[in-house]
């Protein structure tokens, strides 16, 4: 009896990305070969302009690659239409951004609710409970009626994490999530991401800081659009005061 063929969660083959301005081509990523398995915590690390954010946007279905292959659970992304991509963004991936990107003049509750408004299968009756659990998980239950501009940077990023986990996606992408935070708040956020990883989510973290990247179990170094290193994080950092995620 043959074992079924193993299909990784994310796989790229010779993936390239160029930006075009009129006829001028600016290549950003070159021949990226990459496999990310379910449940991994991967940091993509590199200096500014190295292409790490672009790679994350492609892997998160926010942007298109120009050459090569990108397979999500074996399915080539190039064959997906806009609605399918939107559905994947609604159900299987989510994002934590450096600039938080919370809706202004909107409460914590409504910010966390936002992805559920576009989720095709979670019924409206379940929304409130899910939002409350997500807010509780990041320790902001008492602030769920606060407006987003009444929160500190660390709290805003925790709201963004609650928003990312409310749909229980398979992959959470975090783009410089500690970039706008002081070190204490940054530690909190990293602890939250590690807790999400322990709960079974695949985490893909983009950062230019070695110390932040060391919270991951695997570090991909990227330089001038090419992956230069793919390392196990042997001295992995563990942030305390994480969040409570039910497995």
């Amino acid at each position, binding site marked *: 009896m043959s074992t079924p063929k193993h299909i990784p969660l994310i796989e790229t083959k010779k993936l390239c990305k160029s930006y075009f301005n009129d006829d001028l081509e600016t290549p950003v990523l070159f021949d990226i070969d990459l496999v990310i398995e379910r449940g991994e915590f991967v940091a993509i690390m590199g200096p500014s302009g190295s292409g790490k954010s672009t790679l994350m*946007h492609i892997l*998160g279905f*926010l*942007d298109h690659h120009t050459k090569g292959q990108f397979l999500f659970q074996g399915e080539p992304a190039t064959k997906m239409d*806009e*609605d399918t991509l*939107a*559905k994947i*963004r*609604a*159900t299987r991936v*989510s*994002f934590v*951004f450096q600039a938080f*990107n919370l*809706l*202004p*003049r*909107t409460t914590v509750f409504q910010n966390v609710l*936002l*992805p559920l*408004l*576009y*989720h095709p299968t979670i019924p*409206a009756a379940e929304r409130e409970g899910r939002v409350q659990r997500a807010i509780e998980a990041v320790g902001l239950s008492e602030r769920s009626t606060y407006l987003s501009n009444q929160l500190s940077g660390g709290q805003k990023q925790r709201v963004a994490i609650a*928003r990312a986990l409310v*749909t229980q996606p398979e992959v959470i992408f975090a783009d410089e999530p500690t970039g706008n935070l002081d070190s204490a708040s940054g530690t909190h956020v990293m602890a939250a991401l590690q807790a999400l990883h322990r709960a079974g989510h695949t985490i893909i973290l983009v950062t230019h800081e070695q110390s932040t990247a060391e919270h991951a179990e695997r570090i991909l170094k990227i330089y001038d659009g090419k992956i230069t290193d793919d390392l196990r994080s042997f001295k992995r950092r563990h942030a305390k005061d994480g969040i409570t995620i039910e497995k």
Partner: protein
Amino acid sequence: MRDLLQTASKGVTVNRGRSLLTMLGIIIGVGAVVLMTSVGRSMEGVILGQISVLGPDTVAVFPGNQGPEGGNSALRPDFDSLTFADADTLAQLDTVTDVAPVVFVSGNARYGTEESDPRIVGSLPGYYENQTVEAALGRLHDESDERTARSVVVIGSDIAEDLFLNQSPLDKRIEIANKKYTVIGVLKPVGTQFFQNADERIIIPFSTAIAVTHRTYADMIVLKAQGDLDLVLADVTSLLRQRHGIIPPMDGGTENDDFLIRSAAQAQEILGTVSLGLTLFITMIAGISLIVGGIGIMNIMLVSVTERTREIGLRKAVGARRRDILLQFLIESVFLTFIGGVIGVGIGLGLDYVLATAVGKYLDNYTFEVSIGAIVLALAMAAATGIAFGIYPARKAADLNPIEALQYE
């Protein structure tokens, strides 16, 4: 859909002042549509009221070619063109009944110390028939009064009130131009006719009026048409032309005539056309206001899309499809125009009510009219404006690239 409506309402209410200013054009446009169609309906009621008492088959023949609006008949060149013999001949036509020549008598009416300024009409008993008036008290004058040129009067209800207050006017003697008349009847109130108060008239026998004024011509001949009105008008015209030796021009025009024929139906048609023309004119202006308002909406929606570019990027990043964003912004613009429309309807109806209350005191039959059709049409037009002018900004929002939108500064 509920989520979309909530999101759209939040988008509109978050900038209340701006939303309200944006809605102004729509509010004015819709308010004007509702107000003008309601005023149009109310005026229609007034016009119909002016004429319906008479009935559409009442016909009046005036001397000269300028019509009753031509001013004082004594100053017109053909003021004496209608003779009593014309009236007698017209009475012989099969197609008319109740032919009554009219002579106006000048002077005030006085009873004791009370004085009134009525329109004094000398005419035959047929006048009551073709003017559709009845006696509320006493009787109308008849042939026997005509034969003996009796000094009797039938007075309008307002004159009765002016001169006699709460007393019964019957058999009282009133004085008109130094001559005493006995009141034999009071007319039922009829309100205004052709914008003149018909209850402020006094009717005396035709023979008495001639005796007083020594007149040989009529100020007007009134009659009732039987059967097809156009045929009757043609009959009357050809008879009078024949009697007056008038040769009409080749095209059959009326410029050679020394008389003018008006029917209540014609008057109704003219007034109706004027009223419709005015309504259409104002509605057109309201339409322009809606277009201007719509451009304002489009402008502000484009500003809103630019302001909320990052929000649009975020919504796409968390799974919003192109059509979700399109609908969100489209609903927002329709929301703006629809709310503007509702406010406009409220203001239009409010102004209409105030106007109706004020004008209703002076014009009988002017009542507060609400046209549900006009309201529905105005709201539909407002919503359509929202769609027409919201589609471009909404498409612009929906077509944004999520990454570019998220990184927008």
